[in-house]
């Protein structure tokens, strides 16, 4: 029963949702500090091309993911400089990251004597757990059959949830995002915390992009995220800035992105263009539904200072 449509589609939804999960988790932590970074798409692309390159060079999955994460963090550092120190409009700065990341990744992927765009990566990804577990009916492939990165992402979700709600540094992070003036008065470094978690968010997006290129698609192509970064930005809102809900939301959107594959093995024919459209239509509708109910919109609770630069003198 492990090759039924349902089991296969859940497995592919988890794999397709994992890059979005990394990016969404990163952006949740960034936004919790009060910084909105719309550049996720650009950071995923730069993380993807760097991670893919590192994969080709080293053949090591972990080094490749690390390289992708660092590249995403470097790009997010530009946003931190602009949005936190120079107090540039965060929407403008985030959009600039998307264009820079898209341009640089496309340029790099096509350049040189051995362009990445035609190459295969030598990274081998093996399931983590023994075959006996993986062969269990249904739960085998869905719970035990994944590669180590998926389990790592589950650990990170749990750690992020614990960090935000159960630790003092997590409380500091939330305080900076809710009321930077009070946090400042309490002796926290608003600028330092915002820089740190903007970089953390970039790292998450970069890892997501690298995983997408190395594992989900297994190849580099120009603009391979195809909107996944923007979906991640929307999922932060849909998940109400909560890590556990981000996990759920990412897998639901992973399922939507692989719906074509699912319907194909189920023998249903739908034009592929409409299938490609579905995640975007659903996001569009859900964002409206969430905002249409003011009661719920308030309970969902964006960090109160989200998108607003903080300046001690301006108070």
């Amino acid at each position, binding site marked *: 029963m492990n090759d039924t449509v349902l089991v296969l589609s859940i497995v592919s939804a988890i794999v397709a949702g994992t890059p979005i999960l990394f990016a969404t988790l990163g952006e949740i932590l960034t936004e919790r500090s009060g910084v909105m970074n*719309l550049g996720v798409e650009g950071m995923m692309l730069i993380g993807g091309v760097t991670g893919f390159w590192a994969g080709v060079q080293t053949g090591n999955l972990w080094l490749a993911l690390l390289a992708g994460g660092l590249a995403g963090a470097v790009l997010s550092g*530009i946003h931190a*400089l*602009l949005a936190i120190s*120079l*107090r*540039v*409009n965060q*929407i*403008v*700065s985030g*959009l*600039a*990251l*998307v*264009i*820079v*990341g*898209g*341009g*640089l990744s*496309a*340029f790099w992927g*096509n*350049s*040189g004597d051995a362009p990445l765009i035609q190459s295969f990566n030598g990274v081998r990804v093996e399931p983590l757990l023994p075959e006996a577990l993986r062969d269990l009916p249904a739960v085998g492939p869905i719970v035990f059959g994944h590669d180590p990165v998926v389990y790592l992402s589950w650990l990170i979700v749990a750690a992020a949830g614990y960090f935000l709600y159960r630790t003092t540094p997590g409380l500091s992070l939330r305080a900076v995002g809710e009321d930077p003036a009070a946090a400042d008065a309490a002796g926290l470094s608003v600028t330092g915390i915002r820089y740190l978690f903007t970089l953390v968010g970039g790292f998450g997006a970069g890892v997501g992009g690298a995983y997408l290129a190395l594992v989900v698609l297994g190849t580099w192509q*120009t603009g391979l995220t195809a*909107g996944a970064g*923007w979906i991640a*930005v*929307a999922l932060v*809102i849909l998940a109400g800035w909560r890590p556990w809900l981000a996990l759920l939301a990412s897998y639901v959107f992973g399922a939507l992105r692989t719906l074509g594959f699912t319907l194909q093995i189920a023998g249903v024919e739908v*034009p*592929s*263009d*409409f299938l*490609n*459209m579905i995640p*975007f*239509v659903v*996001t*569009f509708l859900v*964002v*409206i539904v969430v*905002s*249409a109910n003011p009661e719920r919109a308030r309970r969902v609770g964006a960090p109160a200072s989200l998108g607003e630069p903080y300046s001690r*003198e301006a108070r």
Partner: protein
Amino acid sequence: MSLRIGVEPRARPALPVRLGVPIASLAAAGLVGAVVIVISGANPLDAYQTMLDSSLKGWRPLTRTLVLATPLILTGLAAAVAFRMKVWNIGAEGQLYMGAIAAAGLAVALPSGTPKVLMLLVILVAGAVAGALWAGLAALPKAYFNTNEVITTLMLNFVALYFMNYLIFGSVSFWRDPQATFPQGKIIPEAALLPIISHRLHYGLLIALGAALVLWWSLRGTTWGFELRTIGDSPAASRYAGMSVRGKILSVLALSGALAGLAGAIEVSGVLKTLDPRAIATELGFTGIVVAAVARLNPLGVVPVAVLLGAVVASGTNLQTIGIEAEIVFLLQGLIFLFVASGEFFLSNRLVFSRPASAVGSA
């Protein structure tokens, strides 16, 4: 002895600062671009010389640049008018596609004997209306539920893109030429083609210039423009002063979408002569955001900036002949955007260099 650097806000910067900061930003973008070109193993001076020669040197390259600048003027205006009110329409890309779809559809549907003036009027207006309606899908939730328009306009871009692909590649729709071996759109009739000024330069440029002038005047000289700017600066105060913020959100997003839709219709009528998804999906909408930012949301400033970025885009293919990937063009656009955005800080703040009092005393 230590030097302290402080930051203090400045009111309206003097003209040399207002011109100097954007020029310095462009220079910085060029410099970083040069570094990337060096890393990729080419000579940046050759690259920039090629870009200049292939886009601005001589009448023929110049007309090519102006053809590319035409849609960028319109998408730049689309972004400028919305951003002026701090309504973040990131959806010019999709609104442009919908304008192109409407224009191409009507051009094929109307009898080919329709007088040229009537035909052009109908398809250009249809393009603008389609763009406005597509923007309206995001404007209504924004106006009534305060839904985040960054997300909604962006999602609609992808929906429009896949819809356009479906019309040509995914189905034998009304737009697709049934006789062609490879999927392609029906060619629009002669009457639907914008007249040519010179080489491939068409009268769409004049429409775009006219739009820039009208928008500049509307923002400066009308109550509508005054209210729009006031709401952008302070929505709460404007509401208190009795302005209809909801109505403005709807009208500004509709206008913004109409400008983008018009750009799509003009591309079909003046350049492509058919609905060609691959040729029209070249990030014209996103580049328009860069244009608007560099022009500091000034409709008249949009025109020279669009020509500049049109020149950058126009030189992309020529760069390939000297061994530099055409994608450098997108990178340069992003760098320009980035540096111009940081330049905003230096326009609204000044750096103050001072020595701490104690240090001065001990000297």
